[in-house]
């Protein structure tokens, strides 16, 4: 083979691999992307049962009910709308009433959100960023959310 032919083989091979990679990504993007929604978004966008979404907001105070076999129900609120969430399993360490939560799952026909994952990942201030943004959007953000875990500051905090 001449230098030119070899280069063609190399470039052709590279393009083929790239094409495969792009095809894989496009098909995966269609199937596996999950949108984040606040309870208001769910109400406004009329998200139907069966669509997989992430639902984020605050766990409404006093709404947590524990059933048998680790079943739990609670309500997620952004101040304007509430959605009941059903989950079976062990709740993450940072799950508290009145604090931020992100649940992943689908709405069932009766309007209850059946969650299969409750996300444990929070930043140090207990507030998932998506939830903070959603609360700011709905006008229910309070500045003290960000400082909740702080103990009395002895002068000159940030």
């Amino acid at each position, binding site marked *: 083979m001449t230098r030119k032919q070899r280069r063609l083989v190399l470039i052709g*091979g590279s393009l083929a691999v790239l094409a495969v*990679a792009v095809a894989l990504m496009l098909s995966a993007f269609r199937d596996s*992307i999950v949108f984040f929604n606040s309870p208001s978004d769910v109400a406004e966008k009329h998200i139907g049962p069966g669509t997989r979404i992430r639902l984020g907001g605050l766990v409404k105070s006093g709404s947590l009910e*524990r059933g048998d076999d680790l079943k739990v129900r609670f309500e997620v609120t952004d101040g304007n709308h509430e959605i009941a969430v059903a989950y079976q399993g*062990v709740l993450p360490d940072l799950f508290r009433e009145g604090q931020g939560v992100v649940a992943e799952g689908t709405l069932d026909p009766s309007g209850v959100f059946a969650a299969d994952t409750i996300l444990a990942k929070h930043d140090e201030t207990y507030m998932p960023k998506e939830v903070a943004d959603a609360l700011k959007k709905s006008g229910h953000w309070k500045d003290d959310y960000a400082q909740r*875990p702080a103990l009395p500051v002895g002068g000159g905090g940030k």
Partner: protein
Amino acid sequence: MIPELGHYALMLALGLALIQSTMPIIGARSGDATLMGMAAPAALTQFVFVAIAFAALAVSYVTSDFSVLNVYENSNSAMPLLYRLTSVWGNHEGSMMLWVFILTLFGALVATFGSNLPVTLKAIALAVQAWIAAAFHLFILTTSNPFARIADAPFEGRDLNPVLQDPGLAFHPPLLYLGYVGFSIAFSFAIAALIEGRIDAAWARWVRPWVLGAWMCLTLGIAGGSYWAYYELGWGGFWFWDPVENASLMPWLAGTALLHSAVVMEKRGALKVWTILLAILAFSLSLIGTFLVRSGVLTSVHAFATDPRRGIFILAILVAFIGGALALFAWRAPLLKQGGLFAPVSREGALVFNNLFLTSACATVFIGTLYPLALEALTGDKISVGPPFFNATFGPLFVPLLLAMPFGPLLGWKRGDLLGAAQRLSAAALLAAVVAAGAFALQHGGPVLAPFGIGVAIFVMAGAVTDIVERTMILRVPFGAALRRAAGLPRSAWGTAVAHFGIGVTLMGLVVVTAWGAERIAALRPGETVDIANYRLTFEGVFGRNGPNYHDVVGRFIVRRTNGDLLGIMEPSRRTFPARAMATTEAALMRRGVSQIYLSLGDPNPDGTVPVRLYYKPRVLLIWLGAVIMFVGGGLSLSDRRLRIGAPRPARKIRPALQAAE
């Protein structure tokens, strides 16, 4: 006094970095040896000053000096010494200090051990290192000063984030940073080569040990982080395709590609331009990783910075260095001479194949990680790209790579014999097929993916063994002669085989634990039992226990085989840290061979039951064991005579480098 000293030392380091970043280049342009000679002492002194600053911060932490804001916010006098020390980098400011500490350490190492480098290359490379250092010094001093004081010092600190209070965190960040920052050396040398417009095979020989060292640290750092997430987060997962994990995986993929393309460049003088590009990309991805993790655009335990100024500053560093480097590349790369010819089927061809798939896999991770950020910035839609995306893209791209891996070392340079290699691998392929078929039969049908994965893992491992068998001719010559051949093999050949074997081991662990792991969730009362795999756990009850700065609610479980043999007790706990009013789950692990029983507790229910998560994780330890084997393989390769000696030079000048680089 000590924090002020540290602050001052950091400012001096910035000054030195500015000198080091300009004078040697001027010297290299004008041929002034004195100016070029400034680079090495400047790099050494800069390191000394950064070390002083870092030590000052560490002393403030160890002595619990809460008049320093950073210490007050992230430490507590009740914490054990180890955690007071690790909290130095368990926060934004301190972790940036660690970054520059390692960066200047590498600069100092190049200055010390680079005596066999061409004078101009060394001077320019050190200057480029200093650009990076200056940017980060400036970043720390202007936006993230770790030495800021509080007017009236509080009595007690706010404690380190409890999930970070773990021995694993003593090693994970420094190792990761050694990896990230280690690639800066390859970057600096690449930029220096572009500025000089000249590059040869010796360049690859100088740069490869640095890349190899960085790659080794990054491998262990990623594995360590994964093991930490596995046992500390309490849900038994070892890889979540979380953006923070991806941020460390991308430089690893690019670095692995760089490692392999540098071999081609060193041995055959080919792929020069590509190697330079990979060197730029590997460090660029490290910078992007730092940006993703530190800027607060992502939410995770790693996102310390929430101050938008910092995000913008890091973004500016990112744009300047990556954009600048790529522009320089576009301008100067055409000047570099093309290297040797090779047939598509050859060792070079195999390494190109490796590079192609590694970089494509890296690109899918990159897009999957950044697409949600881009989409949110453009449309405001918030999406999550989770494991399904990466499994569907990364997996298929890695399979051909793994299948081709055993072939590479068996192909000759320039022109390889694919049929011959296939014949030599027939035993390995047969073994893989038999084991895969056995696994398929054992699981009584079902999905074929897991047996296939096992087959690939066996093929990779057996292929690595085949490589050594072929090289030592152990099946064809008398045993003694084979031993002598084995001893005479270059260490890099052993390193390749060992590292490739490690990949197979990791893959085996991943496949088995994913396919045959078991999970149970139950709410238990004292005296009740729960079964998983061949084990039966009896819940004895809960009791309290106090630690230095936390309180544990411990559940006690007795573990037996289903046939009644007593194996031991497991004590998972819920750990509450009063200083932050935070609780963590401390899972209990029981090792059975390379498998584990994993048990974590939930908050007790009002009705007196305690929720538990119980997992059986078969062969899970292989995942991290494989990474350790890769590390050892890298180490063997690093100890190769060729790399210790460096570029060919008269014998008398080799000596010091020989001892120094040990």
